[in-house]
Each structure stands twice: as structure tokens, then as C-alpha cells.
């Protein structure tokens, strides 16, 4: 039941969105953060064959079955996380980037992320003044079970604080910011380690950006019916 083939016609010179009928799995191996279990990963391959041409394109990605929930604890003000229904005590490391000249090698990512796992950490937070980390970073977080808290590119020190106040309305081009944010989400969204998007560091983005990010990242109503029971 884990193979499916569908017939789809795509009009000339156009782009369409297509959703497969859902694939059913009985008790798949779940992906767990470091220290809670295995980081089980499945390989998902999507391909397109065009009549009269043959294979036209294919794509593959590691995928982990996991459900991450988090909310603010009203008593402490802290954020509580659950993975696959189980509460998790977060032990995290702060991350900006592995090299200031962006010599971002896979080997360096591998070594640094394994080091975080070896330190018994289960989360890495990517600071808003730095990068949205690269797929290679996320790949090794998937492998070693490091949840990722990814911030967008807003910081209090450059957007909103100081005398005189620094860039109170954030970046000049809000549409460009949102375009980059949406593109980044599409780049990284299939990684099981991706746990939380945050607007910025120590600062709420300008209201229109914040509202757009919250709306775009809202859980689709179709998936709100998903439940453990």
C-alpha cells in the first residue's frame, strides 16, 4: 500500500497543484528526538512519467513520522513540547552558523550536529540574526534527532531597539521578506527535525509580517482532526 500511481493531465504551459490520495501505514516506525528512541526515516520517492516521453522528473526525500506539539505553559510562561504525544524535557544549544565566511561544508555540519547529540542535547535553536540553516544542516539533525527551532531574520537590536530606535518597521521591503520566508519554508518543511518557526530574536516582527507568517504557518483545518485517540 506504500506505492501509488495516479493519472494526471497537465495543460500546456501551466503549473498545477496535485495531492495524492493519502497513503495508509499501520504502526510505522516513529521518528524520535535524541534520547527518546530511534530516528526512523523512510525514503519517499515521487516521480512523473509523461506519455510519449518517459520519465520526466523525480524527487526523493527522507521522511520521519512524528507529531510535534508545543504551547505556552500559563503557570511558568515557558514553552512545553510534546513529541508523538510524549512530553520532552528540552536540552538545547544555540546556533548561529558554523562559519562566518559561510564555508558551510557537509562535514562540518555532520561533526557539529553529532557533537550536539553526543552532549545529550535534543534541540538546536537557529538565531534570527543569522541564517535559515541549509538542508544539509537539517539532514544531520534528522539523522541525530536534534529538533530545530528556526527563527526568521528579525532581531531586537537591529529591528526596534536603541536610541534612536533601529528600523522600527523592520526590513524596508516587507513583501520581499515574506517571499523569502515562504521560499525558506518550502525548502525545509519536509525535515522531521524542524520543530518550530519563530518570527525573530527577542522581537516580534512588524505587525503585517507577523500576521502573514502566523496565517501562512497555521495548521490546515484538515490536519486539526488528527488525534492520538
Amino acid at each position: 500500500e506504500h506505492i501509488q500511481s495516479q493519472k494526471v493531465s497537465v495543460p500546456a504551459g501551466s503549473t498545477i497543484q496535485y495531492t495524492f490520495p493519502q497513503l495508509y501505514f499501520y504502526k510505522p516506525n516513529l521518528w524520535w528526538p535524541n534520547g527518546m528512541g530511534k530516528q526512523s526515516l523512510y525514503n519517499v520517492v515521487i516521480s512523473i512519467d509523461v506519455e510519449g516521453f518517459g520519465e520526466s522528473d523525480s524527487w526523493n526525500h527522507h521522511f520521519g513520522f512524528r507529531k510535534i506539539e508545543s504551547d505556552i505553559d500559563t503557570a511558568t510562561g515557558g514553552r512545553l513540547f510534546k513529541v508523538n504525544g510524549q512530553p520532552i524535557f528540552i536540552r538545547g544549544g544555540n546556533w548561529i552558523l558554523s562559519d562566518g565566511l559561510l564555508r558551510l561544508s557537509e562535514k562540518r555540519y555532520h561533526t557539529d550536529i553529532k557533537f550536539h547529540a553526543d552532549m545529550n542535547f535534543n534541540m538546536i535553536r537557529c538565531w534570527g540574526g543569522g541564517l535559515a540553516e541549509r538542508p544539509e544542516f537539517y539532514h544531520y539533525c534528522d539523522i541525530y534527532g536534534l529538533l530545530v527551532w528556526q527563527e526568521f531574520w528579525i532581531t531586537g537590536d537591529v529591528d526596534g531597539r536603541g536610541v534612536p530606535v533601529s528600523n522600527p518597521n523592520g526590513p524596508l521591503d516587507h513583501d520581499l521578506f515574506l517571499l523569502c520566508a515562504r521560499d525558506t519554508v518550502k525548502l525545509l518543511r519536509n525535515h522531521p527535525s524542524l520543530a518550530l518557526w519563530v518570527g525573530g530574536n527577542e522581537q516580534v516582527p512588524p505587525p503585517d509580517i507577523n500576521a502573514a507568517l502566523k496565517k501562512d504557518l497555521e495548521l490546515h483545518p484538515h490536519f486539526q482532526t488528527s488525534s492520538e485517540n
Partner: protein
Amino acid sequence: MAEIGKKSKLNSGWLAARSTEVELSGAQLTTTHPPSIGPSSPWMEAAVPGTVLGTLVKNKVVPDPFYGLQNETIIDIADSGREYYTFWFFTTFQCKLSESQHLDLNFRAINYSAEVYINGHQKVLPKGMFRRHSLDVSDVMRPDGTNLLAVLVHPPDHPGRIPAQGGQGGDHEIGKDVAAQYVEGWDWMAPIRDRNTGIWDEVSISRTGPVKIIDPHLVSTFFDDYKRVYLHATLEMQNKSSWVADCSVNVQVTTELEGNICLV
């Protein structure tokens, strides 16, 4: 050469030169006057993916800024002007297409904007450090299969100035752009002199047939205490041809049991 559905990284063989030291146009560089390295040539081996400063460090034109106080010896973009860190990047790649095939040239990130020339044809890449660009270059491939690519990379629009006392994000000008903000210096980081200008992430080519897969999205839902689980897969399909494409769209999920043995 990329197979259908696979990408080939263009991460070696790049050259770079300061734009003010190159008198040729992008069209000339990618047709009649491809650059080469020589004693009187402004071109040097480039770090791609990487930054302009990374290229200069690689060629020992400037010292590595992360040793001692060496960063102080490198001129800051506020003093040099943006042109100083505006650089050409150049490479070649092999590709021949069959009928109905398409080739995309993909940039996973450039800081901050760029002009792309391929075999004499120009494309302009818009601003923004954190966005991907995918250009269909099928129509401009050379028949002999050797293709010339030049990219003129511009620094951020607002590189800012570093105050004498330093501080979090320098004079905060960088915050006006959609770019990394640490590059004007922070309490943990010296200012990055070129503000990380460059082709800082992967460049690749990918070959497809008439229909291309764009940004699949995988989501799972769980029921009955994680016994009953569904995988939802959505994708965009772009038909680049001038005829209706009847497609068979396939999804397959496997898990590796041991070594190269997979369970389907």
C-alpha cells in the same frame, strides 16, 4: 551531466574577479572572451558556494579574519564602497539536451542580488539573501555541449557602517535588507567586511522532461494511538511544453532494513 530528476552541483572550477577590474561585459565573458587565470589577470579561483571575502581568503589576498586581530587589516565595505566587493563569478559546465528536455540552472541562495549571463544571454536575479532562483536555460544551451556561465554579484543594498564602539548590528542599516544581520558585528562576532556578499549556497543544474516537479510537501496524520497513520503528499507540476501532458504520477515509500535491503 545531470540525469533526469537528479541535480548536478556546480561547486568547482569557478573563477572570480572584482567587477571594477573586468572591462568585459557579461555577454563577452560568456561568448568570445571567457576568462582565465594568469599573471596579469584579475581572475582567481573562487569559493562557490561561499562569499567574496571567502574567495579573497582562499587566494591569500587577505588574511583569515577569524585569527587574531587580522579582521582589522581588511577594508570594510563602508570604507571601500560597494563596488569593491561587487564580484564576477565564472564557470563552465557540460550539457546537451535531447528533444523535449529542459535544463534548469538553480541558485539556492545569493547575497544580495545578481545578473546572470549564460552563453551571452542575460537574466537578472532579484534581491533577497534567502530565496531560491531557478532559471530555465534550455533555449540558450550551446550545441557543442560546453556552456559558459558568468554571475555578477552585488552586495546588500544597505551594508551600513561599523561605529567606532562596535555594537549589536553596527549602525543597523543591514536591518533594512532581507539578509543576515550579524554581518555588521555583534557581541560574539567581528564585522564581516563584505557583509557575506556572494553565491553563498549551492549552485546546480537539473534536467527534466516536459513536466517538472516543484516543492513536494509531505505531512503525516496520526490516529488510534499512532497505530493508524496517513501520509499526505502534495506537489506542484509544471508543464513546460506546448501540449497537454498526460502523466503518471508515482509515489513510493521505502524503509531501509539493513544495508541496501529496502522494504516496500
